[in-house]
């Protein structure tokens, strides 16, 4: 069983993509033997107020919610994000939200991240932090955005031990810089789509901790086969494979 923790829908501001609707995503999931996907909104990345993009995401997933779980976007730099969180949870049953801190102009040391952790915890909403949207070296000159500094997660995970955080789209070096935090914090996970290196998931299992790793493809921006082949390339035991492929993802949302 596989759970894809990093699927996406909606127009991508920087390139036309092959998959834009739920039907195509579901067909691809069937082909890749993916049972469930957590789906974010690509168009929300450049929106000041992501509410309309979130609505488009909810509408796209309507009727497919047993397999496609929405990850609406919050922009903590836009007034009313608390109301948007409440709306996403109460009206649409969201269990997770995504943040794009560097596209929306704040750091993880911003007090609003702590405020989100405070209100997300009783709502049982996990917080996904997108380190990047794509390789900084290929950004358009008018939109050159550095990656998110993940270092404040060491304090955030301690300050808000009941809040669940997931790091998305981080490079292996960025993850290893937080290896101690991943090893010790039981409320922090790492999605694997951007990890690179021969046999990288074996190395990440050792240094970050297999319990922290979530399988994600970053489809349709990335070829989903990349994440699937990483499971083949790495030295992983059957139990480690099961943990990364699905069990850890289930744990993020379980008993929360």
């Amino acid at each position, binding site marked *: 069983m596989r759970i894809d923790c990093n699927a996406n829908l909606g127009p991508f501001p920087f*390139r036309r993509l092959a998959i834009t609707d739920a039907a195509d995503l579901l067909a691809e999931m069937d082909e890749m033997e993916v049972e469930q996907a957590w789906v974010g909104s690509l168009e929300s990345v450049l929106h000041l107020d992501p509410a309309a993009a979130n609505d488009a995401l909810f509408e796209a997933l309507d009727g497919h919610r047993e397999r496609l779980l929405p990850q609406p976007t919050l922009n903590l730099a836009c007034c009313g994000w608390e109301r948007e969180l409440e709306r996403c949870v109460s009206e649409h049953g969201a269990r997770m939200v995504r943040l794009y801190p560097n596209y929306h102009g704040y750091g993880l040391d911003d007090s609003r991240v702590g405020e989100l952790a405070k209100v997300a915890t009783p709502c049982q909403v996990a917080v996904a932090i997108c380190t990047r949207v794509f390789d900084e070296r290929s950004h358009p000159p008018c939109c050159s955005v550095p990656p998110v500094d993940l270092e404040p997660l060491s304090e955030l995970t301690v300050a808000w031990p009941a809040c669940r955080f997931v790091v998305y789209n981080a490079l292996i070096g960025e993850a290893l810089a937080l290896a101690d935090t991943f090893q010790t914090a039981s409320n922090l996970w790492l999605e694997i789509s951007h990890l*690179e290196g021969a046999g990288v998931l074996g190395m990440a299992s050792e240094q970050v901790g297999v319990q922290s790793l979530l399988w994600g493809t970053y*489809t349709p921006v990335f070829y*989903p086969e990349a994440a699937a082949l990483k499971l*083949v*390339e790495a030295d992983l035991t059957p139990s480690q494979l099961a943990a990364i492929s699905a069990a850890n993802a289930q744990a993020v949302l379980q008993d929360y």
Partner: protein
Amino acid sequence: MIIDCHTHLIAFEGTAQQRAARLLYFADKLGIDVVCLSLGSSLVCQPTPEEVAEANDFVLDAAGHNPGRIIGFCYVSPAHPEVSLAEMERCVAQGPMRGLKAWVCRRCTDPGMDPICQYAAELEVPLLQHTWRKTVGQMEHESRPSDLAELAARHPHANFLMAHCGGQWEHGINCVPDLPNVFLDLAGGDPERGQTEKAVAVVGAERVVYGSDAGGRSFASQLAKVTGADIPEADKRLILGENIRRLLKL
């Protein structure tokens, strides 16, 4: 047969043989039959003549213990053209290497590349040239894909592999449609969907080759650029092995 046109031993530790064993261990897991190997034990932006030779010795050691699995590419430096020509004589003309590799010591438009390209044409071996166009700023002397296009136009009888499809692959691919002596190496960038389809559409599947940039990159993510691409199976076979086999005369 799957041939990876672009690998290094830099990400591993130990002797050349130990590192080669690790590289091939992961290649085996994904059914990669042959890897083309270049550079030495570490990356040096401005290698001395001695460091160029040491890098080639390292690759010769790795390849010598893995005949049929590792094909060496000779490291050349346009900053030291005479040394490079001697290394080409030692490692290619008199040795087992079947290609050349140039990195970032000079932009590839540098005049120091001219004797290297002339000898490469004579030896009928391709040059794998690093290229990466970056929004965040180039490394000093780092070549852009347009630089390689200029070099390839200057040397129509030599064959070139544009490493990384130029980094910004939409741009890199669009730089070379009319240069039949330039092949696009898919290695080294994130597995962004559309790269391979674009390459095939613009230059044709006969001029696209699979490479990974392993061990710094995953064989997995780079192989997926081909296996996951929306192109005919016959094109995938060309990209995965047939094109580079033809180019290297294997």
